[in-house]
């Protein structure tokens, strides 16, 4: 029971290796082993979160070496929350993906699922670790596995992915430079140790440069506004089930690293007093929300519209981080949770439409509402939540963000958050109108379409009902899980 923080990434790693070994001999056993690994990690993550809620933060020392000698894993409210979120979305996406992979890329199933498990091991390692260099190692594990599975498929995906490879490697190497400078200045790589030593070397220029490099590196990984260039092409051309897995969780883990740096390593009064990094993040995010929402309105391809919408939503999270006060941080964390559910649902719906009807251009969606009832119903729920109408969960995260803006006295940001909901409404209701109001002009692909098969429809419906449930119980989540995180920093 005390070994919980290690079992989560280790079980995923072991099942990746076992799945690859078994898969070279028998192809049909790969999917059950994948499901077994993810279910083990999800159950362990839920048990870990319950233990943290009862007992407080858990510290785990790898190899028995205590810090600052060894690598430390920390399971506290923030990491427990993120681990449960990532594993739950991963489970639903993997259940969704089987039919889609069998239709699109049947001969590459074995390496595909092994790489999915490796990527999930990397993501949980990033979330749980308390050591700065260990975070770089797991960041690259997750990123390399993600590059590989995104390049499988048609002939436009590799061009999009090579750009992501180059920009993602620059981001990770900038993070490595930042960690190097922190090591030169403090002599330690452990997050808690560095947080203890930092107030003693307050005016050091090395720390300022380190902070800048880490923020820019994670902004590249997170697709913050001017550094988001790789994201629309990648989300448009990759296989649909792969995007449904990666889009809700990859960029969120980048935002998690920024929050971890803010909350545990560079405490907020250091960040706001020495170099106004959070102010710059906030302004870039505000411009990004407006610019990306306008770009999303201009798209005809459904997946490309969802990709620009994803950049705008991650800019909401960055706006919450950039405010650097309690309500802003609660809004950012709640928006990570809500957006994972909303975008997971939307990308799975996009994959379902492609699976059944082979369509991805919005003008061709005319009249689909009559034929794919459950799918379009789930799309309506997700669209309402993205716009921000209660009781769907999207309203509550934007509410906390606006409260944070008012607390910081920054009226421009509050106006941006509210006005961008109108922009979201434009591009989502345009699709809703095409789907429900416009009569289908007897297009044979539309009339022959029906709801995706049960294996693909069930995760969509679970996510859609999760959107409503999260909206109803959001007060419980905020008081039990998110407020202890914020009280660490402020």
């Amino acid at each position, binding site marked *: 029971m005390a070994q919980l923080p*290690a*079992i989560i990434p*280790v079980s995923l790693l*072991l099942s990746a*290796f*076992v799945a690859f*070994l078994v898969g070279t001999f028998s192809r049909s056993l790969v999917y059950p082993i994948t499901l077994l690994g993810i279910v083990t990690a999800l159950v362990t993550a839920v048990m870990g979160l319950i233990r943290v809620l009862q007992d407080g933060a858990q510290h785990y020392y*790898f*190899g*028995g070496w205590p810090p600052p000698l060894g690598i430390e894993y920390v399971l506290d409210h923030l990491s427990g929350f993120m681990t449960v979120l990532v594993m739950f979305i991963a489970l639903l996406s993997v259940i969704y993906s089987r039919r889609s992979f069998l239709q699109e890329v049947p001969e590459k199933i074995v390496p595909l699922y092994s790489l999915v498990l490796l990527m999930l091991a990397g993501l949980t390692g990033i979330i749980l670790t308390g050591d700065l260099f260990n975070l770089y190692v797991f960041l690259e594990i997750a990123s390399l596995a993600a590059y590989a599975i995104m390049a499988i498929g048609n002939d436009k995906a590799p061009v999009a992915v090579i750009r992501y490879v180059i920009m993602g490697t620059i981001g990770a190497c900038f993070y490595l430079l930042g960690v190097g400078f922190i090591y030169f200045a403090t002599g330690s790589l452990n997050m808690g140790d560095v947080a203890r030593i930092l107030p003693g070397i307050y005016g050091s220029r090395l720390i300022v440069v380190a902070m800048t490099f880490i923020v820019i590196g994670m902004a590249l990984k997170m697709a913050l506004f001017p550094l988001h260039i790789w994201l629309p092409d990648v989300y448009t051309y990759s296989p649909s089930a792969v995007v449904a897995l990666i889009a809700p969780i990859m960029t969120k883990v980048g935002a998690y690293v920024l929050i971890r740096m803010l909350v545990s390593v560079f405490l907020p009064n250091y960040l706001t007093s020495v170099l106004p990094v959070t102010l710059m993040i906030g302004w870039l995010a505000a411009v990004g929300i407006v610019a990306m929402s306008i770009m999303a309105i201009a798209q005809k391809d459904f997946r490309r519209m969802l990709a620009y919408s994803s950049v705008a939503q991650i800019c909401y999270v960055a706006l919450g981080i950039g405010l650097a006060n309690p309500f802003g941080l609660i809004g950012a964390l709640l928006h990570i949770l809500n957006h994972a559910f909303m975008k997971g649902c939307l990308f799975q719906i996009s994959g379902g439409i492609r699976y059944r009807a082979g369509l991805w251009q919005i003008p061709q969606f005319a009249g689909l509402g009559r034929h794919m009832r459950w799918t379009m119903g789930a799309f309506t729920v997700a669209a309402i939540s993205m716009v921000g109408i209660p009781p769907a969960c999207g309203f509550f995260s934007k509410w906390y963000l606006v409260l944070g803006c008012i607390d910081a006295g920054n009226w421009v940001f509050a106006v941006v958050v509210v006005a961008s909901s109108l922009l979201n409404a434009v591009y989502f209701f345009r699709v809703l109108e095409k789907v429900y109001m416009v009569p289908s002009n007897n297009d044979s692909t539309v009339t022959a379409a029906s709801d995706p098969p049960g294996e693909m429809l069930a995760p969509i419906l679970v996510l859609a009902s999760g959107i409503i449930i999260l909206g109803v119980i959001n007060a419980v989540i905020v008081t039990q899980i998110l407020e202890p995180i914020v009280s660490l920093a402020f």
Partner: protein
Amino acid sequence: MIAKYRDLIVSLACRLMVPFMFLFGFYVTMFGHYGPGGGFQGGTIMASGVILLRLSLGRQATIKKFPLELGHIVGVIGLLIYSATGLISILAGGEYLNYAYLPIPGMSGAERQHLGILFVEIGVALGVFGVLLSIFDSLTKEG
């Protein structure tokens, strides 16, 4: 690139050198405790031995001894040795990769740590050997 090299001297010299390369790679792996070396370095040297054979003798001649799937299988077995060593430590009551808890009879805690590092280095050497060989094989595959 993967056809047999036409010159006799080159192919003969490569065939003579490769066993020594394997031996040197094994030496570097084992002596990582006492000098520069260890799993990654030894694995790379061993992989470069097989790659030299593939480059100089051609693919047809080397497939009998080093089949195309060898890289994948040996690599995964090596990584499983690494992970399983850590898992045995958890099952025996300690933390992950705490070699003092490995159930080897007749040794003190410090000696078990010494031996545990050796197991892990062998696993890493096999893993790196397999991965580099499979990278080379998949990059030079036809079509």
